[in-house]
């Protein structure tokens, strides 16, 4: 990894970290992020290392722990934060929210809330490139919990049988919600499952952004060169709970475990590497401040953006509108003044 890319890695990881800290703060203060929020703090190296190995026009498909993927792929932060806040300026116009960030402009084909479902979709994007005569690669992010679902098996098998230009990156943070991987998978590693598809499978230190980059870069080159798909398992850890439950700790993980992983924080590790490589403290502090400033601006943009108008409820369902003669989508929205049902 050359110096410029190493700095870029730091920049992107900082963007993700600051963005999620800001989101966490808005949630905690009840300032307008509704619904489920799954933070990837601690997993930035796995995400950024992967996206750095991609070309700007390559594709990513992600999952519910979503924010890092489009940020690492280069999406503007303002519309992402506005989406979390359900504003009309959100990247999905407020229709998707935290679990469904997507920015097609940077090749982010969207995050799904259905575990594993994005895996075959990434295979399909790679197939699409073949049909369109393009050498674009498609990369699927998913968690360790997805390794036991049928979509994982079918998606990897299809990609292998068709020799597609796809890369499958598992962010193995050891747990699916409160469930330890060891309790749901008899096999020793997720990477080892690649053998069932005669596909290379590699396990990599998910805290080391350079190690992840090297592994995914090799997979991307192979994919682009017609060599077929690769499964990369990045061993990592989430610092926060499964989701933000108003600060409640689910306490399903031993405290020492969390501390041990924090001791190998991906941002600290990379910062140390850069310092050792002779990057100055000042340069690094400027990177950090720049990221913080970007995030402050994104929050400002989001908070000052308007909510969607009632008529937008019926928009975006179809490309060619509902308008068959006499057909309507059902009773229209009522004046926004109407009281909510008290459950």
């Amino acid at each position: 990894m050359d110096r410029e890319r190493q700095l870029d890695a730091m920049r992107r990881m900082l963007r993700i970290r600051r963005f999620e800290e800001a989101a966490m703060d808005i949630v905690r203060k009840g300032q307008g992020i509704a619904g489920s929020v799954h933070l990837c703090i601690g997993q930035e190296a796995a995400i950024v290392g992967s996206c750095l190995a991609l070309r700007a026009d390559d594709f990513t498909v992600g999952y519910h722990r979503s924010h890092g993927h489009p940020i690492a792929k280069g999406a503007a932060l303002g519309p992402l934060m506005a989406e979390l806040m359900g504003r009309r300026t959100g990247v999905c116009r407020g229709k998707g929210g935290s679990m469904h960030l997507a920015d097609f402009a940077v090749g982010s084909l969207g995050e799904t809330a259905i575990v594993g479902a994005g895996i075959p979709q990434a295979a399909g994007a790679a197939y699409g490139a073949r049909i369109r005569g393009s050498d674009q690669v498609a990369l699927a992010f998913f968690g360790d919990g997805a390794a036991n679902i049928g979509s994982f098996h079918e998606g990897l098998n299809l990609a292998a049988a068709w020799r597609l230009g796809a890369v499958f990156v598992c962010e193995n943070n050891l747990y699916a919600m409160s469930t330890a991987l060891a309790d749901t998978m008899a096999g020793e590693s997720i990477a080892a499952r690649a053998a069932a598809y005669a596909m290379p499978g590699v396990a990599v230190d998910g805290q080391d952004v350079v190690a992840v980059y090297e592994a995914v870069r090799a997979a991307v080159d192979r994919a682009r060169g017609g060599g077929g798909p690769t499964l990369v398992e990045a061993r990592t850890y989430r610092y926060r709970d499964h989701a933000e439950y108003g600060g409640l700790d689910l306490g399903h993980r031993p405290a020492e475990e969390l501390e041990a992983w924090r001791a190998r924080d991906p941002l600290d590790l990379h910062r140390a590497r850069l310092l050792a490589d002779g990057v100055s403290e000042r340069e690094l502090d400027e990177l950090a401040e720049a990221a913080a400033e970007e995030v402050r601006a994104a929050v400002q943009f989001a908070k000052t953006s308007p909510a969607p108008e009632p008529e937008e409820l019926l928009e975006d369902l179809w490309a060619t509108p509902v308008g068959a003669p006499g057909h309507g989508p059902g009773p229209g929205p009522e004046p926004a003044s109407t009281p909510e049902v008290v459950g």
Partner: protein
Amino acid sequence: MSGRSGVRTLSYRDAIREAMLEEMRRDPRVVVFCEDARFWTMPTNGFVDEFGPDRVPIMPISEEGFTGAAIGAAMTGVRPIVDYTIANLMYVAWDQIVNHAAKNRYLFGGQASVPIVFRAAMKYANATAAQHSDRPYPQLMNVPGLKIVVPSNPADALGLLKSAIRDDDPVVYFEPLRLWGAKGEVPVGDHLVPLGRAAVAREGRDATVVAIGDAVPAALKAAEGLASDGVEVEVVDPRTLVPLDTATILASVAKTGRLIIADPAHKTCGAAAEIAAVVAEEGFASLRGPIARVVAPDVHPPFSPALERLMYPTPARIAAAVEAAVADSHPKELTAQ
């Protein structure tokens, strides 16, 4: 608290937990399949300590697989409660539910029993967006072989779940998550609510509102308001959608002559469509005017709370529909044709 005659106050969520506890104590063949079942957020939290790891196994994220496993276990004498935790996740297991659980008894000429309860919490109105906010019971109502319930209060949540667990057929048990926190009185003792019986939640002579799930509290609120204007609304809660208690619905419409159906599910081919069709077929003579559906429009639940709050039946929407129905109906003496 003592004696079968007493009542206790429970939340809808605790009523569900209580029903499972009572039935698992009663019958050692009742087991729970639920991801993170042992997790503090789940109604089954702590069950493993009382019932052991075999009856509350750790689930991989494999809805299709563990639904198939539940069917295999059910056909050999076990009574699984399969909790999908989010109704949309049933789609991943749709083949096992629709092609197998619903069909095996018929397909095998009565040899197979599939006594499974499929629990499905519906997270709509919680800003979880389209993939976590569905109300899929209309889809399953079109599939023969499944019994379908949607309790609207803690007493029914308890009594219907206990009946469902004891039933020898597959029962899909839908829970509007926004009702989980609602508290209500529940009879002490072995409280069973039979499948297939509607409840008249409020009596009235001027219009019938058939309401489903959390549209029931909304309809009752609307009825209160209308009563002060002298309009007496009868609120019918089917509780069970399959088999549907059409007799109670038809009797109410025979009395009021007007029908409004309030349902948070989508409009097209929804439960409201079926109820409207039954009355247009079997109760036409008693109708004094058009039937009205107060339902969700045919778009997906949006994430933004500013938009999602416009999706579902509210007291205001129900009241407006009742007023329109009362205005737009012909004199009773003409209905005898």
